[in-house]
């Protein structure tokens, strides 16, 4: 079965079959990182550009390692050290990059919908590495790969997502994919961080112990202090008193619960250090699996069969119009 997407913009609406195909492909790539010679020639001669408008260590380095392990050439640009500081727009930057004929562009942007906007305007696949509070598809895929490696299957699991759901693109991508694969999702946090619309997707809990009761998986989210224009809770101390995942709180979850966190962690705020480093934590597995997931995504998007490309050029115009309409409008960064 071929992978049908031209871009990886989000996991909303991606079918169960496509998700499984992505995960199976990623699974087979895990072994490459265990070798002495961690490199395969598959993407030799391909150029991958990463364009980051927000800070990142894990995601950007993970993509870079993934691209290099596939033998692609990797060019890394960040807004702070590029012409963006001279006032160049996203579109102009992307057009200039596009003119250098890359085989994929990895974009992280503070505006939701930025990757969709570019996807309709460049010739190569766009990989969303996080757009505003919208989606972060490769993070969700590595979460799924990590969960599947420990729990055999995702269908039927109870997954508690704890913390700052409001600002979390990871949570959104996780929810789309987990629900597609048949897991039950719960949200846990203070009312100010859980928008009321969440009830459509799963139970909402404002008490940590109730929220993680008998959960198979707990996904902790980072309190995104940098994204909060105003105060969503009285103090960090108060937040951690009620919602920090401690050894004591863990007793309420299933005995074989696993704990995920997308990083970077605020130790002592949303997660206690002994839990983050404890036996239930699979946080380092997530990081390892991230490389395999990104290798799979690069492989599937760049190495697309010719037949598929030919059928696409016919309707390219239609696709462009459609995705431009679907993309949320870009807003200027607040402040």
């Amino acid at each position, binding site marked *: 079965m071929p992978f049908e997407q031209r871009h990886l913009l989000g996991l909303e609406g991606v079918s169960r079959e496509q998700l499984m195909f992505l995960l*199976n492909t990623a699974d087979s790539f895990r072994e490459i990182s265990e070798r002495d*010679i961690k490199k395969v020639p598959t993407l030799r001669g391909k150029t991958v550009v990463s364009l980051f408008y927000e800070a990142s260590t894990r995601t950007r380095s993970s993509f870079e390692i993934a691209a290099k392990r596939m033998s692609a050439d990797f060019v890394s640009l960040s807004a702070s050290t590029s012409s963006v500081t001279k006032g160049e727009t996203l579109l102009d930057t992307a057009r200039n990059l596009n003119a250098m004929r890359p085989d994929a562009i990895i974009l992280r942007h503070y505006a939701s919908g930025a990757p969709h906007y570019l996807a309709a305007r460049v010739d190569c696949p766009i990989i969303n590495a996080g757009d505003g509070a919208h989606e972060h598809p490769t993070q969700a895929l590595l979460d799924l790969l990590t969960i599947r490696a420990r729990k055999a299957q995702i269908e039927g699991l109870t997954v508690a997502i704890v913390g700052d759901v409001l600002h979390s693109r990871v949570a959104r991508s996780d929810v789309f994919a987990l629900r597609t694969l048949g897991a039950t999702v719960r949200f846990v946090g203070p009312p100010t961080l859980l928008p009321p619309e969440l009830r459509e997707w799963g139970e909402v809990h404002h008490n940590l112990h109730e929220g993680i009761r008998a959960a198979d998986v707990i996904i902790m989210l980072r309190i995104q202090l940098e994204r909060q224009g105003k105060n969503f809770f009285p103090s960090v101390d108060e937040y951690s008193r009620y919602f920090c995942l401690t050894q004591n709180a863990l007793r309420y979850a299933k005995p074989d619960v696993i704990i995920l966190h997308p990083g970077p962690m605020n130790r002592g705020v949303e997660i206690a250090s002994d839990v983050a480093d404890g036996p239930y934590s699979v946080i380092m597995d997530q990081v390892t699996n991230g490389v395999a997931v990104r290798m799979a995504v690069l492989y599937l998007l760049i190495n697309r069969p010719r037949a598929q490309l030919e059928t696409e050029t016919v309707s390219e115009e239609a696709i462009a119009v459609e995705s431009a309409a679907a993309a949320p409008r870009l807003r200027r960064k607040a402040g």
Partner: protein
Amino acid sequence: MDYDRVVMDAQAIERALTRVAHEILEGNKGTEGLALIGIRSRGVHLAQRLRAKIGAIEGVEIPTGIIDITLYRDDLSRSSQQPEVRGTHISFAVDDRRVVLVDDVLYTGRTIRAALDALIDFGRPRNVQLMVLVDRGHRELPIRADYVGKNLPTAANESVQVRLMESDGRDEVVIAHAEER
């Protein structure tokens, strides 16, 4: 044009594998340092069968691995379908081993070229040998097999299909017109 010619039945495959198992042992003067690596997908089944045969003859379990050559193919961007990657599993060190690569059909030699590249990424074997169930000719690279189940002269517009119990429910080798596939 509607012919499907069975050129090897289950018994013929069984006998060929038994003979080849003996040839491998003879050529390597025993099992010391010997390892089998099957090329996905049907080479894997053939490697397992050879391992069982060698085990029965010599009483030794020789290490057996699996190699997926998808990531090493030279035709990835030309192929009409996206090949599924299913992973390589070699749980032993290949350094200084005598490695026998196992595949079902030897044709252009490009699969073997890719398998050699993949194998070398795992280390430096003492030597690499090649076993195929069927050699159908039409080589495009300077590659030959050391152990052959059956030499089968074919035309380029014919296709050779190896069917094995493990994946296809029966053991046979069939020649068909390529158009019929």
